[in-house]
């Protein structure tokens, strides 16, 4: 069997989000449960139908156990792989294999975090993680991670290819313009390029606007076999392919700071889908930082290496531009609860169903979803999704 044999065999049939922005007084598990309930109901199924589960959380090493207990499910298939925020895209391939093999009938992929409003905050967690998961060859130099790692990547990209801070700002402004069309987005105030350029530096060359939001939020979606999908409530969105690549952990071990594992995951995902960048109606990519969007456009083949800056110029990826990217407003302006991969998948599904109101990409039939995980684009997972027309 090859990846190609799974093309279109599995569909996403239900999606849900909850607690996006601020979810005061709620726990990670509570908003995850609300999102899961919404996704299951969106599919026209019941929670007891979920006999497969994929989930991960940064604070809990055995998080699937917490979720099983909270939801009251008894899954026959479970995947708790945590490769950072890409996880909720990378969960697709194991779930596709399990569903296709008939090991289970419906897989719930779910995530939730109240990092913004929780009393045990990012500061305490960062301090705890240095002890639990040491990084002895970087920690003594106090990189402010993840921003500093992506700053090193951006600086190298600028040095090698002449990418400018204005190019990065174009990405942040495009994300904001999409967010202004999305009622669910957290940051919807107007933003222009000069404001980004003059903003407070966090880790040069990245300003506060080049860095993703810190919000609460939960997201869940339901996968099932294509034959079963047709009988459910909503129009199925088919997974043509999913491929994951992991190359390193720390930025100091990243061989070429300008090339991410998307180069590999994207090639494999497009090959199995039998489609290429030219066939895609949109890109939903994990913009932890503005540089991520430029790297994804290059590594997935929407432009050549080093041409990502020029690609995004003059509002090219903003509403009304030549190619829609991150139509929910992205991690930069919509929502970013620590790990964001489920949200890009859900935005692609909503677009392909035609549910996106003002921000709807007209006639959208295909989407590429690109997850990013780790402190330095360490893991990338790429999926090609499509409506029945592209099967």
């Amino acid at each position, binding site marked *: 069997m090859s990846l190609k044999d799974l093309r279109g065999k599995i569909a996403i049939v239900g999606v849900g989000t909850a607690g996006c922005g601020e979810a005061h007084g709620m726990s990670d598990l509570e908003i995850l449960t609300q999102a899961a309930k919404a996704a299951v109901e969106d599919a026209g199924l019941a929670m007891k139908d979920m006999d497969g589960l994929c989930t991960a959380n940064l604070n809990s090493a055995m998080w699937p156990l917490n979720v099983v207990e909270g939801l009251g499910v008894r899954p026959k298939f479970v995947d708790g792989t945590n490769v950072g925020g890409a996880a909720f895209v990378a969960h697709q391939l194991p779930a596709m294999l399990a569903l296709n093999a008939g090991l289970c009938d419906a897989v719930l992929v779910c995530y939730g975090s109240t990092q913004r409003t929780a009393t045990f905050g990012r500061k305490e967690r960062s301090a705890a993680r240095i002890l639990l998961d040491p990084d*002895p*060859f*970087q920690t*003594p*130099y*106090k*990189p*402010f991670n993840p921003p*500093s790692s992506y*700053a*090193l*990547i951006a*600086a*190298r990209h600028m*040095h090698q290819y002449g990418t400018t801070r204005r190019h990065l700002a174009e990405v942040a402004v495009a994300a904001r313009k999409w967010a202004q069309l999305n009622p669910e987005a957290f940051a919807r105030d107007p933003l222009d390029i000069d404001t980004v350029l003059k903003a*407070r*530096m*966090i*880790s*040069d*060359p990245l300003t506060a606007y080049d860095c993703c939001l810190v919000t609460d939020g939960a997201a869940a979606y339901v996968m099932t076999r294509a034959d079963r999908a047709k009988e459910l409530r909503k129009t199925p969105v088919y997974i043509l392919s999913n491929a994951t690549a992991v190359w390193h952990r*720390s*930025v*100091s*071990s990243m061989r070429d*700071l300008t090339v991410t594992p998307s180069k590999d995951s994207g090639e494999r995902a497009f090959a199995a889908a039998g489609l290429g960048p030219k066939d895609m109606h949109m890109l939903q990519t994990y913009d932890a930082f503005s540089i991520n969007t430029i790297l994804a456009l290059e590594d997935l083949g929407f432009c050549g290496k080093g041409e990502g800056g020029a690609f995004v110029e003059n509002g090219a990826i903003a509403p009304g531009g030549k190619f829609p990217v991150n139509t929910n407003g992205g991690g930069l302006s919509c929502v970013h609860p620590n790990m964001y991969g489920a949200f890009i998948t859900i935005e692609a599904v909503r677009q392909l169903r035609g549910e996106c109101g003002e921000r709807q990409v007209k006639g959208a039939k295909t989407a590429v979803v690109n997850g990013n995980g780790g402190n330095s684009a360490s893991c990338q997972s790429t999926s090609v999704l499509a409506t029945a027309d592209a099967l």
Partner: protein
Amino acid sequence: MQGNDKGGAEARYQAQLNEGRFLIQRCSDCNHHVFFPRVVCPHCGSAALAWVEPKGTGVVYSTTTVRRKPDLGGDYDVSLVELDEGVRMMSRVDGVPPTDVKIGMRVRAKVVDDKGVGMVVFTAEDAK
């Protein structure tokens, strides 16, 4: 074989640094230099990793200034330095303002004492 009576490769690297010596590894089978220190060569799988003294010179591969409030110590440099042996490491370039550290700068390693713990930092190669 790294890592038996005197602890693992990581522990031995740090013990050397604490005595003021900066050593990296070189694979006796495939001849690649290796950093960070390991017990098995990531290039060829060999366990025959020997400690060697690097020349200590290299070039800034990338750099960022981490912004920090003045009362917490102010801005500082974080750089990735590629040693002339071909391995890359995270470090800091001292002796110049952080925003003056540039990609391509030639730098030289020195071991400094950070509250009893040895660490490698760099200065401009031509600095006195």
